[in-house]
């Protein structure tokens, strides 16, 4: 039942995305070509990865508004590290990025878990703090292409089987996160902790600790994206990915992750991100004036939410329909002795 409804929602999103691509390619031939689609996927990779981290947090009935700031800080830190010590091997740098990201996520998580600050407040605070730290760290200066090593910049661009490694990274993360969410104790605890925190407590799940690790996961993925972003755009500065936190939330919501916690699938979040990615990529391509872009994405988000809500609309308990199915003899008996 659950999977059926979820599948239905996802199918719908897939259909919408396909229709969008069809419309766009009618106006810009080549938009639907395999390279172009691979390109859109590649372009959306970072948003998808971030959305998965955000999803983990949202599942536990929290929100992480600091993902983009975290990305900015780790991106800056890693880029400066690469510039200062070009000899550090890339894998180590990536591990460091994820580690710094996880640490920043853990700070959010600790405030939510140990002090009990609502997540939206805690991350609203760290949103400004982390970005400010990126400024303090760099003194506001940029790290430019020339300062970074070629390996650092080019590895995510290496094309394997028609898709750059950046895209493959996203696929790997999606696969791992799917396993974590559906098959591990932690993953199921995410759903439980958000779906019904009291019940989770009674089931022996430490809701606070689960939230904490959701934030750590979100932070680690944001850290990874910090590296991916900087290498993709070959520059690091304080304002990178400004406002991106709202995109990750929008992707989750479009994908049917309930902001009330406990509901949603990895597929949904990915499709939500892809949906935004297609729109963002398509508008410049089909030559819509840049001034229209913002209004269109806003409009589309509202429509997507409307669509979702229509599906979610709680059906009644259907007492009567059940009655009709198992019609028992007494149900037919007219009201006996009813007051006139």
């Amino acid at each position, binding site marked *: 039942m659950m999977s059926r409804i979820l599948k239905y929602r996802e199918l719908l999103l897939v259909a919408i995305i396909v229709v969008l691509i069809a419309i766009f390619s009618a106006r810009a031939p080549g938009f639907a070509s395999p390279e172009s689609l691979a390109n859109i996927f590649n372009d959306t990779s970072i948003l998808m990865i971030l959305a998965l981290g955000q999803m983990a947090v949202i599942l536990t009935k929290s929100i992480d508004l600091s993902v983009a700031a975290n990305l900015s800080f780790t991106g800056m830190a890693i880029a400066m590290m690469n510039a200062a010590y070009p000899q550090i091997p890339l894998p180590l740098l990536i591990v460091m990025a994820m580690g710094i990201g996880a640490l920043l996520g853990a700070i959010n998580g600790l405030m939510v878990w140990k002090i009990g600050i609502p997540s939206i407040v805690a991350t609203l*605070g760290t949103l*400004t703090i982390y970005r400010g730290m990126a400024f303090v760290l760099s003194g506001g200066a940029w790290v430019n292409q020339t300062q970074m090593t070629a390996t650092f910049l080019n590895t995510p661009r290496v094309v394997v089987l028609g898709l750059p490694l950046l895209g493959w990274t996203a696929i790997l993360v999606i696969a791992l996160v799917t396993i974590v969410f559906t098959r591990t104790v932690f993953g199921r605890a995410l759903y439980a902790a958000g779906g019904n925190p009291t019940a989770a407590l009674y089931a022996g799940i430490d809701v606070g600790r689960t939230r904490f690790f959701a934030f750590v996961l979100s932070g680690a993925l944001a850290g990874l994206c910090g590296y991916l972003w900087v290498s993709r755009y070959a520059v690091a500065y304080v304002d990178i990915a400004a406002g991106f936190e709202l995109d990750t939330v929008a992707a989750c919501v479009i994908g049917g992750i309930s902001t009330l916690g406990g509901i949603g699938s990895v597929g949904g979040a990915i499709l939500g991100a892809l949906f935004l990615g297609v729109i963002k990529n398509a508008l410049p391509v089909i030559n819509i004036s840049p*001034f229209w872009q*913002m209004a269109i994405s806003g409009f589309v988000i*509202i429509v997507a939410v409307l669509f979702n809500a229509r599906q979610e609309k709680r059906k009644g308990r259907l007492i009567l329909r059940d009655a009709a199915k198992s019609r028992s003899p007494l149900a037919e008996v007219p009201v006996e002795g009813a007051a006139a």
Partner: protein
Amino acid sequence: MSTLTFEKQPSRHIPDKLSTPAGRILGSWEALLVAVAIAIFIANSFASPHFLDPWNLSDATYNFTEKAMIAFAMTLLIISGEIDLSVAAIIALASTAMGAAVQAGFQTPALVGIGLGVGLLCGAFNGFLVARIGLPSIVVTIGTMSLFRGIAQIVLGDQAYGGYPASFAWFGQGYMSDFSWWPTLPGFEVVTFEMVAFVVFALIFGILLHRTAFGRRIYAIGNNAFAAQFSGIPVQRTKFMLFLMTGLMSGFAAVCLTSRLGSTRHTIAAGWELEVVTMAVLGGVSILGGSGTIPGVVLAAIVMGLVTFGLGLLNVPGIVMSIFIGLLLILVIALPIVIRRIRSGAAA
């Protein structure tokens, strides 16, 4: 079996309140904020010789007056369990509409009407989607945030609207001493229109929230919308009204800001939504709904204004200031929780 044998006991007396008024005030959020404000005030006056200058302080109020006016309405909205992230975008759209009206030759009164009207319409749109259709407000307003500003961008493109009539400048730049009836006492000449508007709206929203049935219903809705509905409170209609109010106040802020800037671009008021929410939360409004006060938000606005002004005098870059604001937010929220925990730990 059906005779009454349950003996009724004399009912016990129940006092109205447990603690003394003094105890309640001292333990309150507002007291904490007052302490913080005083501390920052003192720190500022030590840090810079220019701080205690009436004209400087008057200029500094512009850092928070417009945002605070929105924050008052937002406070009511957040207490009712909703949020509006589109307020800054409403400013952009309202300002654009006013700019277009100027090009069409409208005069100041019409401009103000248009600014407020567009704010109201935007609020109605949000309210319709949230209260009527039942969509989650955080998502709806993330959408309308792009939509409203996007429309402004379509209209304006890379252009700017300017040429506002001179009389329009008064809302964002005027002093009350422009009026003959304003007292000419020393210190009163630095009072701006926006400061007066800030005080007046603080009073209006404070009374509305804390002294009227409407305000009480907002608390009931925010704490338990079901129980509110089952008590005959028109939950959806109340929420709709709150979105209208937030839209209207955004429209008013648009009038003030546009008047202060004297020009409209589509980037106007970028990023204000989070500052407004921060102000409300710092003022002790629970982001989960159900609690918060207007005096708290007034104090939070002043605290934020003092911090940014004080740091500005030391030429601290804005982004570093925002670190302080972020830390302040977390500390002020965390402090009472931690103190309470330590206290109950000590009691046990």
